[in-house]
């Protein structure tokens, strides 16, 4: 039973306790008042944290996503960012692998992620003075995918294209008759060479300002090979200034081969196919100089060009040369069209090799290209019909990366 003494003791303790609480809260209040506003309550945590192996890669990466904290772009709106923490043990310790600014709700962790090791993740929401961790997600493993499903559509298109090309190439080999439409710029090539011969002036051939890895450069060198042969037959001089040393070596070989094919190997002068410099404007300055000093009767600008296209073509026009240009650089086409006599537009550049050589194999591939265009127009029509019927599944087949398997 309780004695008076014990009661009074209990009462005193209670009083003591309540005073302590009061004092404590007073101190807290003071602290809160003295500290810079706003009063620092921890932010709401990020929720729905999900981590998964990054799809379609060769491992070493995990993708995370979460729902923003209620205080990010809403609530008190004082979140400054998130820290993504990782551990191999669900109980920690967690190490920070990435920090992102507010408003970010996903991240890819690629910092020394081992394949097939179980990881636990946590996202910590931070404001100026405090932080709140989310629940832990895991374990999750990074792994290697042996096939990139996101590019399945690219693979299918590639295979269709290869099949079409090979089919028509085989047909051409068997001797099927293949038609090719007129390309004015290419018809003019021989005339242009002839004109230079008549005038006793050289021909200038600029194979673009790109590297050998650029397919446009190779397309240009294909044309150069035909031009070199004609030039040799006509006994005309050809000047080929180069922007890239490797392109130069190939161009030398191609031109020499052309002279050889025309039966005039001795007429080939290696110093006419030379290197200038690998920067854009010095190259143009030098080629401009050649145009006004050597006065070539014909200028051919074929390959990849950039802003310098118009400087070349206008200087050439001022010397009265016949000019034929060809490029797949969409942005430069208007300038060549304006300043040159003929221009090979985009795909015509790539058709030139077949057009000039009339080699059946090459003509076959042109037919394959046309069928691919038909296929594309078909895709567009089907897509439009399905899309306007309210079904957008067909359109999503063309997503890059393809997401229907995710």
């Amino acid at each position, binding site marked *: 039973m309780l004695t008076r003494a014990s009661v009074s003791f209990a009462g005193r303790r209670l009083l003591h306790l309540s005073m302590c609480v009061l004092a404590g809260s007073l101190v807290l209040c003071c602290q809160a008042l003295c500290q810079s506003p706003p009063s620092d309550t921890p932010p709401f945590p990020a929720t729905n944290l999900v981590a998964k192996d990054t799809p379609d890669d060769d491992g070493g990466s995990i993708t995370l996503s979460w729902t923003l904290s209620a205080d990010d772009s809403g609530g008190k709106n004082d979140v*400054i960012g998130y820290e993504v923490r990782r551990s191999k043990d669900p109980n920690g310790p967690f190490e920070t692998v990435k920090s992102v*600014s*507010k408003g970010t709700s996903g991240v890819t962790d690629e910092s020394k992620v081992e394949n097939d090791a179980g990881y636990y993740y946590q996202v910590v929401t931070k404001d100026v003075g405090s932080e709140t961790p989310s629940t832990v997600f895991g374990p999750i493993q990074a792994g290697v995918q042996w096939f990139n499903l996101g590019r399945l559509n690219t693979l299918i298109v590639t295979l269709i294209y290869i099949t079409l090309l090979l089919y028509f190439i085989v047909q051409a080999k068997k001797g099927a008759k293949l038609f090719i439409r007129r390309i004015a710029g290419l018809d003019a090539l021989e005339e242009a060479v002839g004109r230079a011969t008549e005038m006793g002036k050289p021909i200038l051939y600029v194979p673009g300002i790109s590297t050998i890895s650029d397919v446009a450069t190779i397309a240009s060198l294909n044309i150069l090979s035909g031009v070199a042969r004609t030039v040799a037959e006509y006994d005309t001089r050809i000047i080929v200034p180069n922007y890239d040393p490797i392109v130069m070596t190939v161009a030398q070989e191609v031109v020499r081969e052309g002279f050889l094919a025309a039966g005039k190997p001795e007429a080939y002068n290696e110093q006419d196919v030379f290197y200038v410099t690998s920067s854009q404007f010095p190259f143009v300055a030098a080629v401009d100089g050649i145009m006004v000093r050597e006065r070539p009767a014909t200028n051919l600008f074929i390959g990849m060009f950039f802003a310098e296209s118009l400087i070349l073509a206008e200087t050439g026009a001022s010397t009265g040369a016949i000019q034929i240009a060809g490029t797949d650089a969409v942005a430069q086409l208007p300038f060549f069209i304006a300043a040159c006599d003929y221009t090979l537009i985009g795909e015509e550049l790539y058709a030139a090799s077949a057009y000039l050589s009339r080699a059946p194999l090459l003509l076959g591939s042109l037919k394959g290209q046309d069928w691919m265009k038909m296929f594309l127009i078909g895709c567009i029509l089907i897509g439009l019909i399905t899309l306007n019927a309210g079904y957008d599944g067909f359109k999503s087949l063309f997503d890059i990366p393809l997401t229907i398997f995710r």
Partner: protein
Amino acid sequence: MDSVPTKPRRSLVDRLKDIDRRVIFVFIAVAVIIPMVWPIGLSLKASPPSRALFREVESLPRGSVVLMAFDYDPATEIELGPMCLAFLKQCFRKGLKVVGLALWPQGAQLARASFSEAAKGYNVRYGVDYVNLGFKAGGIVVIDSLGKDFRESFPVDVDGRPLSDLPLMKKVKNFADIDFVMALSAGDPGLPFWIMIAQGRFGRKVGGGCTAVSAPMLYPYFPNQLVGLLGGMKGAAEYELLVGEKGPATRGMDAQSIAHAAIVFFIIIGNVFFFISKRKQKLMGARA
């Protein structure tokens, strides 16, 4: 005696139809140079982002401190330099204090040139009314450090003077002492970082200037995160109009206009003479 075969005399029309291109070159050069030397100030209406920036700066009380970032290089100076001049003149006229710094290496020298040019005609002194803290590498990290203390990233100014020797820097410790941030940026690091840190984290008001190329990417920040934005030479010309200074951008825009008009004029001339000579040929053909 047979007459010596002469070159058929070309009529005036034919000659005008194929004017020597050097005549066109001269006209283009003149069309650009004249408005640059004597600006006209062709009708230009300030767009909302430029006007908003102007009004915001006008509303700052005398003595407020503006932080200005020179995040560009000589290649983009023709677009961003004029904005900088117009803005600085507005600041000096209003009695605002300006602290300049650069996240791009060449920005520090451009800042020096801009300050000395803008200061002409105003009673402003280095160290009191404006300072140039120079360049610091690090991009976003540098901006972040300004939140704590300017001295962390910029212990000395561009000429190596300690900040404690500069009266203006005595009252500027960190972002809390900055009233407005103006970031002139030509790319990365640049305006997006200033928005992210200065506006996002420290709640400062941020305005900006950028190249014409990057303007479409930055416009969406206006008006929520960006108080105002000047895009390219056009934005700069608009600001000069607002500030009332016919500066380099107004000259530039005038030159643009006149040059475009000159080209269109030549196209028209070419076509007129082309048609006249075509009709003449037809007539002559009919007679023959």
